[in-house]
């Protein structure tokens, strides 16, 4: 509201419209089923004052007017502000032909029926259904879990921090979107892998994988809804269905693309999201750091600052456009927000509210599995038999190998090398190691396959002579560092 007596601080200074010069005017569209008018009114007005204007414009008596905004009836004593009515929004009008009593009647019913905290109106316990009570078909507020899927989620609004999981996932999803934009094949490749498919078709297995991850555990603690999801076989199946189906995922992403671009303009909506981002980032990332020594998130091309700093002021910048070319989108974000900003570069990227993982989209061309992090992980596995042992003793590992054992076709499929992408080969190699039960490779594996990830790594480093690389790797038994030394010793590069 205006602090200065003579100046209208806001952009839309329609001071002309109203006598008072220190009021901020907004233009609200008033719509009836037949008609539409734009009415300028002070943003601090009461509904009654608004109705006064409307009655003039529509030539109707004030007490015949019923105003509806966002599903609620506006009472005379309310203010526009209270209902979130801002410039450019639309209010619905019904001109009642019946006398005032009816208007009062409906207002009354709406007050009790909406039962919402419309600033002054409290929930009417007698007639109106309470917020927290719902009919039998709806979700129950208690955290008891009747068979209804929805009731597993209960009255979510009563749980503090609800939806924060979404925020974090939203971020992850944004990253995923970016990855997919830069390498749409990646996901399909991962998912096409028969073993992955197999795992994905086993809800128990997937669930086990997820719940045994401490990072996820923490997330689940903060967001009980996630455990509910995991405990619900039907929903898990649906989730996995989605995960297995890159086309479906992309479809969903497309749908959200529009939503993303509108997000900023939704009053309250963006703030809600931003709140969610803020509250989930810290624990999530510190959990990730603890858990993953080699920080797989960094494998995505960025690195995490300790204590991610989301914007402390209103972040008005649009969320990244996942359809934007990689590398440009994140840089749009950076530099404008109040959060840490770094220009997007091939190296690390400081996280911002919109990009909390600090993902540098331009670095994602190789996809997650081909990334250095993954590769180093693989290397660790190959070099560290104990690690291998640990992995093998994992419950889900057993199931996986059982599937392999029961399904020799699957195993052999996994082992073929022809025309596989780098990612698939990597995955394959991983699986071979598991199936092989140790650092050694089975006899069906050629060195080229066996050292695929090292080969990739070497070529990424600039050792372009694949033959030489391979020889070096064979000589050193897959030890990349030793192989590099060999190569450096024998080559001028």
């Amino acid at each position, binding site marked *: 509201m205006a602090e200065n007596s003579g100046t209208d601080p806001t952009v839309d200074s329609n001071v002309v419209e109203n006598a008072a010069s220190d009021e901020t005017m907004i233009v609200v569209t008033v719509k*009836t*089923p037949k008609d539409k008018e734009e009415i300028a009114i002070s943003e601090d007005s009461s509904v009654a004052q608004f109705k006064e204007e409307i009655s003039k414009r529509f030539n109707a008596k004030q007490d015949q007017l*019923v105003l*509806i*905004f*966002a*599903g609620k*009836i506006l009472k005379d004593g309310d203010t526009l502000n209270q209902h*979130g009515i801002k410039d450019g*929004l*639309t209010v*619905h009008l019904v001109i009642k032909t019946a006398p005032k009593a*009816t208007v009062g009647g*409906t207002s009354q*019913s709406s007050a009790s*029926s*909406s039962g919402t905290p419309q600033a002054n109106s409290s929930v009417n316990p007698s*007639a109106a*259904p*309470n*917020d927290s009570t*719902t*009919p039998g078909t*709806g*979700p129950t507020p208690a955290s008891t879990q009747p068979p209804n*899927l*929805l009731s597993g*989620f209960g009255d979510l609004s009563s749980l503090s921090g*609800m*939806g924060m*999981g*979404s925020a974090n996932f*939203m971020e*992850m*999803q944004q990253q995923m979107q970016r990855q997919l934009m830069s390498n749409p094949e990646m996901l399909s490749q991962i998912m096409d892998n028969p073993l992955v498919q197999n*795992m994905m078709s086993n809800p128990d297995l997937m669930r086990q*994988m*997820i719940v045994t*991850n*401490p990072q*996820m555990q923490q997330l689940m603690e903060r967001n009980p809804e*996630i455990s509910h*999801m995991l405990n619900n076989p039907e929903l898990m199946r*649906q*989730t*996995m269905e*989605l*995960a297995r189906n890159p086309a479906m*995922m992309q479809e969903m992403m497309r*749908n959200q693309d529009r939503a993303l671009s509108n997000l900023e303009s*939704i*009053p*309250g909506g963006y703030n809600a999201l931003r*709140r969610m981002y803020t509250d989930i980032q810290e624990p999530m990332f510190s959990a990730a750091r603890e858990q993953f020594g080699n920080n*797989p998130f960094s494998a995505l091309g960025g690195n995490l600052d300790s204590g991610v700093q989301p914007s402390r002021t209103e972040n008005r910048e649009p969320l990244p456009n996942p359809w934007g070319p990689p590398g440009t989108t994140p840089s749009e974000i950076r530099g404008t927000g109040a959060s840490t900003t770094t220009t997007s570069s091939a190296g690390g990227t400081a996280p911002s509210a919109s990009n909390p993982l600090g993902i540098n989209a331009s670095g994602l061309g190789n996809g*997650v599995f081909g990334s250095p992090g993954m590769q180093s*992980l693989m290397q660790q*596995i190959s070099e560290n038999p104990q690690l291998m042992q640990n992995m093998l003793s*994992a419950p*889900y590992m057993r199931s996986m190998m059982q599937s392999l054992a029961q399904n020799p076709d699957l195993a052999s499929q996994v082992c073929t090398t022809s025309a596989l992408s780098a990612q698939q080969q990597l995955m394959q190699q991983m699986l071979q190691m598991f199936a092989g039960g140790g650092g050694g490779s089975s006899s069906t594996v050629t060195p080229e396959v066996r050292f695929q990830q090292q080969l990739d790594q070497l070529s990424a480093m600039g050792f372009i002579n694949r033959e030489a690389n391979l020889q070096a790797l064979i000589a050193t038994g897959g030890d990349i560092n030793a192989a590099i030394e060999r190569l450096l010793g024998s080559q001028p590069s």
Partner: protein
Amino acid sequence: WPSATHPQLEKVMAMAIAFIKVPRNFRLLEELEEGQKGVGDGTVSWGLEDDEDIMLTRWTGMIIGPPRTIYENRMYSLKVECGPRYPESPPFVRFVTKINLNGVHNSNGVVDTRAVAALAKWQNSYSIRVVLQELRRLMMCKENMKLPQPPEGQVFSN
């Protein structure tokens, strides 16, 4: 830690979970915006019941009774619940304002999904608005348009 070695797969799963949850939220935010901008023909309105509801679950809807029916000029308030699987699953809808309409339970205002095509044959491209508009259309049907109605201002009890 064994699970540490499958971060990617877990991540994929987490993202898949996100893909379930997030589209829902984004979609609902879209609907929120549309409600505030008055998208549609002005005969229905909808919005969040509580602005602080970050799960975007509980919505209020308003249907303006269609002209030339017994519902004319009445305003019907509804509660719409969008569960976690929305928009893959349809919302739960019930009338708060008392109404006599086929497909709406007389006792509690709950809308029978079988009676409303949009709910019975729900598609994820449908929305709260679509449901409200359909209910309004039902009011215009021959079988409904002359049904005797309770006095204005009454609401369904729980």
